[in-house]
């Protein structure tokens, strides 16, 4: 009989990578199954066409379908901004590293029920996650100054690295924010501002989000967690391993995983515990593919909540055009933010909110910039002299955005597409996603605020923000995102949630989920530090319980 591992981890991104690291460090034998291949610094150039426009570096085989709602036709394509590779999507993250605020853990209690939304409290509070935020910040070398955001989560331990240089665009943004009475600060970033953890200081090359870091100055599971795990000798990492089923035994326990290799041949591994971290799209896909007599609707899906309550973040964005080169093509994605407008205020006509930041998503990428702005008719024609003038404005532009919290809706989610199959013949994930009215009201309100900030900063003209073509409307949802959460939410009630407070299935005692799908609500901050911290928390619990013999 094949070797039985202590633990099988599916996925090597933010959640899975931390589990692999922490469990191998504790002496467990871990087999890790990664659907993608190995990429590394040698592959990480900053060719915009290769990396972004054609997206051929990180997930060449990714395929999904999308539909607006259950009665809409589906479209086939690649909508989610994912990376199917060793290290997962955190490999090309922008490294914004927030702690969620205490109220982000109890949205239902704080706000009360909202019609059409499926709000829920988290089964844990900020205090329970706090020590693990500290651990994640330390391991991932977060740079910044947490004393400078009066609206952020309470935090006693200083960040391990000092803030980065202030890009010209960030200075401009902060001047505008201050003029309006706000409190801008350096975005906490898991990017080295000095040599740290055996990794060098950032080289400020401009291309950060959507790109791998060629020098590992950006902390990722690829640069931090997996090398450590590989040094223990306890890790069996298998690449190009597309898991298609989690088999269960007669007692209703998962026995490991079945996967297809690159050639499409099936293999099986056996493990005492299985930890799924395939992302909020891939995890429900896998659980729903794992049907059995005991779990006819998919593994761990007695509640019917697997694949439901998918949230992204929506991102109202505005581009201000200034009279000087703002050097957006240097540094990394975002150097400055302010949080004054984040707190929930029902008087605005919506609840919840988000953090506001400047970013270089367009201003380090001339193709993306020109192609998107060519569609903005604020300046007139989308071709000819108007387009050329827009291209010339490239270095003088500043983008402002919001990481805006969305309402979870039960009907938004991921299931198996009944028609479209991947290259192995497996059903691809079908994403169904539309916006709640609260999202739309929030979008419009923040867009106006971003215009105010851009104008206070001295913008001569505004693009995107006043263009109805780019507004999200009631009949049009944002397709795909880099921030995916909620499709296997945790909770105390097994009839309304998939996981318990330890991210362990209510129904299957040796099945755990540690990617962003555990989040009942998404907050108005980038989610990754919270996914990392939660994985440290779950790993800590796992090791303790295992030592007690309780697993």
């Amino acid at each position, binding site marked *: 009989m094949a070797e039985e591992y202590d633990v099988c981890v599916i996925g090597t991104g933010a959640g899975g990578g931390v589990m692999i690291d922490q469990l191998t460090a504790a002496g467990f034998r871990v087999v890790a199954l990664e659907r993608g291949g190995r990429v590394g610094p040698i592959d990480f150039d*900053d060719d915009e*066409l*290769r990396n972004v426009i054609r997206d051929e570096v990180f997930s060449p085989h990714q395929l999904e379908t999308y539909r607006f709602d259950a009665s809409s036709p589906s479209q086939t394509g690649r909508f989610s901004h994912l990376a199917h590779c060793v290290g997962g999507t955190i490999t090309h993250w922008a490294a914004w590293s927030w702690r969620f605020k205490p109220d982000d853990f109890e949205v239902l209690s704080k706000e009360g029920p909202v019609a059409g939304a499926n709000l829920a409290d988290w089964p844990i509070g900020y205090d329970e996650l706090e020590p693990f935020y500290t651990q994640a910040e330390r391991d991932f070398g977060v740079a910044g100054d947490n004393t400078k955001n009066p609206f952020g989560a309470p935090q006693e331990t200083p960040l391990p690295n000092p803030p980065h240089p202030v890009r010209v665009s960030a200075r401009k943004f902060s001047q505008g924010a201050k003029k309006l009475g706000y409190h801008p600060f350096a975005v906490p970033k898991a990017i080295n501002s000095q040599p740290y953890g055996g990794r060098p200081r950032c080289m400020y090359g401009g291309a950060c989000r959507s790109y791998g870091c060629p020098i590992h100055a950006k902390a990722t599971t690829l640069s931090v967690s997996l090398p450590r795990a590989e040094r223990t000798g306890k890790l069996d990492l298998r690449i190009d391993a597309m898991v298609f089923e989690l088999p269960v035994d007669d007692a209703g326990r998962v026995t490991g995983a079945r996967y297809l290799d690159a050639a499409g041949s099936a293999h099986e591994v056996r493990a005492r515990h299985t930890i799924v971290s395939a992302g909020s799209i891939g995890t429900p896909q896998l659980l729903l593919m794992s049907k059995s007599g005991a779990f006819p609707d998919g593994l761990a899906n007695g509640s019917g909540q697997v694949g439901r309550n998918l949230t992204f973040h929506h991102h109202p964005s505005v581009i201000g055009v200034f009279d000087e080169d703002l*050097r957006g093509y240097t540094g990394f994605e975002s150097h400055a933010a302010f949080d004054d407008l984040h707190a929930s205020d029902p008087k605005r006509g919506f609840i919840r909110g988000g953090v506001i930041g400047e970013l270089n998503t367009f201003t380090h990428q001339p193709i993306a910039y020109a192609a998107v702005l060519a569609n903005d008719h604020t300046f007139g024609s989308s071709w000819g002299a108007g*387009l050329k003038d827009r291209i*010339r404005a490239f*270095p003088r532009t500043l983008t402002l955005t919001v990481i805006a919290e969305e309402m979870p809706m039960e009907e938004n989610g991921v299931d198996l597409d009944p028609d479209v199959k991947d290259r192995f013949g497996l059903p691809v994930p079908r994403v169904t996603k539309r916006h709640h009215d609260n999202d739309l009201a929030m979008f419009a309100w923040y867009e106006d605020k971003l215009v105010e900030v851009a104008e206070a900063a001295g913008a001569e003209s505004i693009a995107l923000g006043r263009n109805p073509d780019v507004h999200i409307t009631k009949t049009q949802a*944002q*397709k795909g995102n880099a921030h995916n959460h909620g499709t296997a939410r945790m909770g105390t009630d097994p009839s309304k949630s998939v996981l318990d407070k330890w991210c362990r299935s209510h129904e299957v005692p040796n099945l755990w989920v540690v990617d962003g799908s555990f989040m009942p609500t998404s907050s108005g901050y980038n989610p990754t530090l919270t996914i990392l911290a939660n994985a440290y928390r779950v790993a800590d619990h796992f090791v303790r319980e295992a030592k007690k013999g309780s697993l």
Partner: protein
Amino acid sequence: MSDENRREEQGDGLSRRAFLQRGGIYGAGVLVALNLPRPKAAAAAAQSTEPVVLSRVEWANLEAATARIIPTDHQPGAREANCVNFIDKALANEDSVAVPLYKGGLAALVGVAQARHGQGFSALDAAQQDAILADLEKGAAAEWAIAEQLPSPLFFETLRAHTIVGFLADPAYGGNADFAGWRVAGYPGPRHRRGGYTPDQVEGKAPIVPIWEQ
């Protein structure tokens, strides 16, 4: 993926609204939206600036059209950047799915020019060319003979997107000749393999020299 899905994806990926809607503008790898297939054009482009897929006549008409998308003024435009070469090499490689679109579209474009002015598109003056392209963008050219098979706005959007990409992609792909696009954009070039920027450059305290002057 069925052929039907593939067609739908291609058509959808090249339309303007879908382009915006698919990704949103921040979260979703916005330009994954173009959904163009995989790459070998850099190598092909490096080998030759002679037409590979396009005929000489197609090349001339396409070059003239790109030159109206990004015109030449006191700075170089799509013609000087050799965007037509970028498109030709892309069609020979990763964008081969669009070959019928270009072959059919360019023939129809010439058909409109012939019907209106008795000459090929590349022989017209700029105002005549602009008037035709504006009608193609709107789907308003009655002389466009293949509206059933290929709506003119789809051809126009593809042409426009490809011209922009050819103008601003790395010169290794065959366009952006002599860094023309990056000069116009004020973009000093990619730095991952050139050591990045110093903190002083990030903060605006030190000058930045473009890669073509280094």
